[in-house]
């Protein structure tokens, strides 16, 4: 029951000047022009467009407002999280090298149609929580990096698994990741060279 209204998971938001019908769920090709008030991150994929099942059917099985807009309905995230902990959720601590404080994220909030979209959403959420001037880049070979656009420092998302080893985020299927992840750490790229190569485990 956890709700994550971070900007990571969005469809079309209620754009100004559009009437009711226009705000209903529509399928769009990825990369098509967004409306002015669209809160979709440029780098975040559009889950419903990617999903093969949604693309195939005329009326998607998902409810009318599968779209999530930032800060709507207007309930404080503290309250949403508190109610979510009563239900199934998995909060893990997130540390960023160099930042003085930790944050928590609920991994169950990012379940998407594909692993790829879940990871994208997670990274976008991390970006929101820590800095508003981090952007994340997804390189061709599935590597993910977060870049502080002000200082130019690159961060690589890593996680500690049940055995206490530090792994690169993004290797394993999403569900397995949620299962095994104990905590997250955005490590500076320069330090991440010591991590196990991707092929391992």
């Amino acid at each position, binding site marked *: 029951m956890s*709700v994550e209204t971070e900007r990571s998971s969005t469809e079309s938001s209620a754009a100004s000047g559009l009437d009711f019908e226009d705000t209903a769920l529509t399928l769009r090709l990825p990369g098509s022009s967004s409306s002015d008030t669209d809160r979709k991150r440029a780098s975040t994929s559009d889950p419903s467009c990617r999903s093969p099942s949604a693309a195939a059917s005329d009326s998607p099985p998902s409810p009318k407002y599968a779209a999530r807009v930032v800060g709507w309905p207007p309930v404080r995230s503290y309250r949403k999280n508190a*109610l979510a902990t009563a239900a199934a959720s998995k909060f893990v601590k997130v540390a960023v090298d160099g930042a003085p404080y*930790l944050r928590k994220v609920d991994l169950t909030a990012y379940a998407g149609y594909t692993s790829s979209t879940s990871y994208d959403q997670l990274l976008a959420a991390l970006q929101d929580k820590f800095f508003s001037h981090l952007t994340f880049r997804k390189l061709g070979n599935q590597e993910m990096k977060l870049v502080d656009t002000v200082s130019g420092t690159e961060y690589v998302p890593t996680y500690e698994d049940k055995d206490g080893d530090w792994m690169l985020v993004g290797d394993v299927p999403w569900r397995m990741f949620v299962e095994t992840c104990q905590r997250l750490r955005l490590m500076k790229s320069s330090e991440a060279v010591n991590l196990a190569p991707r092929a391992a485990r």
Partner: protein
Amino acid sequence: MSEEDEDQAAPPKRPRASPSPPPDQVLDNVLETVLQFLAAPRDRGAASLVCRSWHRAESATRVTVAVRNILAASPARAARRFPNAHHILLKGRPRFADFNLLPPGWAGSAFRPWAAAFASAAFPALRSLSLKRITVTDADLDLLARSLPASFRELSLLLCDGFSSRGLASIASHCRGLRVLDVVDCEMNEEEDDEVSDWVAAFPGGHTHLESLSFECFTPQVPFAALEALVARSPRLHRLGVNQHVSLGQLRRLMALTPRLTHLGTGSFRPGDGVEDQGLDFGQILTAFTSAGRPNTLVSLSGFRDLAPEYLPAIAVVSANLTSLDLSYAPVTPDQILPFIGQCCSLETLWVLDSVRDEGLEAVAMYCKKLQVLRVLPLDALEDAEELVSEVGLTAISEGCRGLRSILYFCQRMTNAAVITMSQNCPELKVFRLCIMGRHQPDHVTGEPMDEGFGAIVRNCSKLTRLSTSGRLTDRAFEYIGKYGKSLRTLSVAFAGDSDLALQHILQGCSKLEKLEIRDCPFGDAGLLSGMHHFYHMRFVWMSGCNLTLQGCKEVARQLPRMVVELINSQPENQRPDGVDILYMYRSLEGPREDVPPFVKIL
């Protein structure tokens, strides 16, 4: 202007040496004595405008100073004018920041100069400090703790962030005369488990002066032994709010130590695994609530953060005396609320989740005849969640609770008829906040916009000062609001309206408007500029996701030099060159602030 002349009109330029004070000084003394009885902030403000000597007298005697926008006035200015302040309230971020609309770090160091001012005894009589929506660091708290005067008694942090258990430990250990420490709804910094400070144990030994201690939002576990010891040596404690790690058995032990309890935040309200919960049963909890005359002393209950429903009926024994009940963290169902709601005849404030359904609200309407404040919050804050409450519940409340003053109601769908009925049944309404969670949802029975419903509210509720709209609204709704909402001070609008006309209606009609929050509406520069005559009377205007342009905002900044016009960019990558993401403007005596993060531009 001879010294013997006692009848001069102008105030004396030097203190006189004559045996009896001159008439003007007498007047000042009388004024000060009389003004001490004037409490209401608006009255004080009015008195200070009468003339200079009234201004002086009022400033000297003002004990409660509220700086409702921390960026509007500097601490030095406040200290110069109100040197005798006992209680200071500071408010920071705009409310929409609560919903993640404002990027973090927007005004992270706004409190620093105030902390420094407090530390340097700029307000020597300071007794109590209330901070709301302000970023406060551990360093700030430490500075305060070490340098506030011994008369300092109360610290209240509401919706604040930026600090951790370390800051609380500083306060606990150094503020010797502390009577109130309330940490409410704060997003504290996460800490490693082994780094969390045991701030509860940091209170000095021996009896404390604590009267109120609230830490319901504190996420790590507090060592129970230390908590129990603290409560045991705080004989004056009558308000206690514990966090969700405190089990029912532990709560029972704490209650046994606090016979004077009036306000209780119950923690989890579920048995735990510890030694305190061994052999716990319903009877013991019932006893905890019946003992120490609690049915006559307890007036407020909250918490229930992980409710074990089989224990909830225990609160029936105190229900008759309760004036405030907060169940908003407990997914209480209708049959769980029925056992005790029937006895809640004194209830004035009730916060529940929509899990109580229309049925539960009907019961509330039937028994809680004195209800003044109601909040129905969503269990599942999604636009497409299951519909648990509807117009049926709203209508029932309006028919049963005629004295209702304030309502916040989340629902999936609503009808105009129900809103109109409420406007007719509840003429005392001062706050009407309806949140139909589906954006642009019309009246689900007639298919019409919700214009008539909101129109009826502003028309019939003449005391209305705060309004939040939702659902499908055309410009007509705002025509009504502008025409009838003459007492409105705060207005929140989201996903509504058709054109600039709507904003024009608001700005030209609502003559008492002070706070305006708008998000995702088709309002542009024309609408904004129609309010130029009024903006100086307002505390702030927030417009995000609208159709404003840089030119329009620049025009406002140009014509109103005392407004600080901030353009905030919440999405650096996705930006039109001249489009405005968030406009946040506020009047300020200090001009544009200096510490401005990269995503903020001040015009």
